[in-house]
């Protein structure tokens, strides 16, 4: 049986205690809201994209250590990145969480090339299938926010 140490790595708890990029952004930043129907977690992602690059991102809401730390790490990871790169990252992260995405224009090679960095710490979540939805909540909400960006 996987132990709690697989789940609650120090870096996760650090992001949980000291979340990065918390707050809100005013329009024209887009806002998306996500719910984890299982535990009631709610998250709001504010995304400010300028010229196809994530200029700023903020995260608000309430949640457990996994969903909050995942959101915090995500915000760090995507800030300053181009949208294509962000998409590949989301795909890579969801892949690590064993969520299968349908084939699309992002190739497997592109996805595999993405560096996860700190996010690797969330790897242990896969052993606790119920918590996968906690870990992916911020990411799914990010996708939602991206889908609401005005067409370039």
């Amino acid at each position, binding site marked *: *049986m996987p132990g709690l140490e697989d789940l609650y790595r120090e870096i996760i708890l650090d992001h949980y205690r000291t979340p990065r990029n918390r707050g809100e952004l005013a329009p024209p930043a887009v806002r998306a809201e996500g719910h984890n*129907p299982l535990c009631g977690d709610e998250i709001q992602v504010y995304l400010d994209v300028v010229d196809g690059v994530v200029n700023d991102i903020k995260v608000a809401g309430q949640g457990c250590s996994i969903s909050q730390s995942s959101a915090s790490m995500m915000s760090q990871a995507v800030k300053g990145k181009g949208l294509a790169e962000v998409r590949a990252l989301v795909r890579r992260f969801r892949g690590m969480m064993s969520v299968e995405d349908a084939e699309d224009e992002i190739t497997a090679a592109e996805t595999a090339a993405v560096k996860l960095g700190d996010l690797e710490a969330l790897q242990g979540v896969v052993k606790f*299938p119920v918590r996968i939805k906690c870990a992916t909540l911020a990411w799914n909400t990010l996708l939602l926010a991206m889908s609401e960006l005005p067409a370039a």
Partner: protein
Amino acid sequence: MSFDAATVRKDFPILDRTLDGRPIVYLDSANTSQKPRQVIDAMTQFMENSYAPINRSAYKLAADATELFEGARRKVGEFINAPSADEVVFTKNATESLNLVASSWGRANLHAGDVVVLTHMEHHANIVPWHMLVAERGIRLRWVPLTADGQLDLTDLATLLDGAKVFSFTAMSNVLGTITPVKLLCEAAHAAGAITIVDACQYVPHNVTDVQTWGADFVAFSSHKMCGPSGVGALWARAALLDAMPPFLGGGNMIADVRLDGFTCAPVPAKFEAGTPPIVEVVGMGAAVDYLTALGMANVRRHEMDLADYAINTLTERYGDDITIHGPTNIEVRGATLSFAFRGIHPHDLSQVLDQHNVCVRAGHHCAKPLMRLLGANATARASFYIYNDESDADSLADALEGASDIFGL
């Protein structure tokens, strides 16, 4: 794999039983099927070892139960070749599946004057929900008539479908045994711009089912007719349709958020699964799918064709004009469900006499009163065969009929 009904029969504890010292000749599987040891055990073991809430709690026991439950969804999806397990919605029975479509898709898409096409051989479950929309919405119904041998008369199909929004039809008649040309009917409906709803309640238990080859939009069926537990059924539908539909029942599990002033829905399939689902029953349905898959649905179909052939021949050779078997004579387009009339004896009386020999057949309108009226009867006797039946059961039926006419002195 070769298929041996005698071996299969051993898996069904109830068929080992005797009543008044005689074995049970169960010929009512079109009504509901018996349950193999494998399904009973799966349910018992789940309740003894693994029972827990689904999709709600985070502890191991609940996570494992959820995995077993969702595993059953995948099995059911694969059994009908659904593109994705998430397109499988669990309901309480096929009736709820059909009501779900009529109520949710129907109320969102059908308005006064819109046309829904049904056939004359539908089960009440595929008639009454539409009558309710006739009363509530003023939709109109058109009916595909039948040929003399109980097949769909497709002569005017294009005209009937012209301008229709929905074509909802059975894949196999529970009265006549008729298997309908589902793929062709779906193509005709789509060509006319109508969506298709297939009542596959009598088809899935007896045939290889492939919803993608059919090209259907909605497919409804029940667990209890396919060796699975009572209390659970399924609706398969294309994801895009389910996504666009308003919810059906409201409550826990089907929501993303609830506030004092409104709610938002969870993604499918949760959106259509309000409240605590039939947890044990879904797991049992998964076990039934495993059981049937191991037998091989092509073998099942072949077995039933042979059996239907044998039963029809035996009865007609023995009783000639005294017996009328309804439905197609061509075995290729019929299942092993035989409705019949015998020497003018009322089916209810007939079934009572057969019951003296533990021969279990259903007598009645089989929830298809419009079809009954067309047959000019208000009831038929119906013997329906399944995997655990063999030629000896057909013989028992034939023997038991012998005594029937004496009593009524007809």
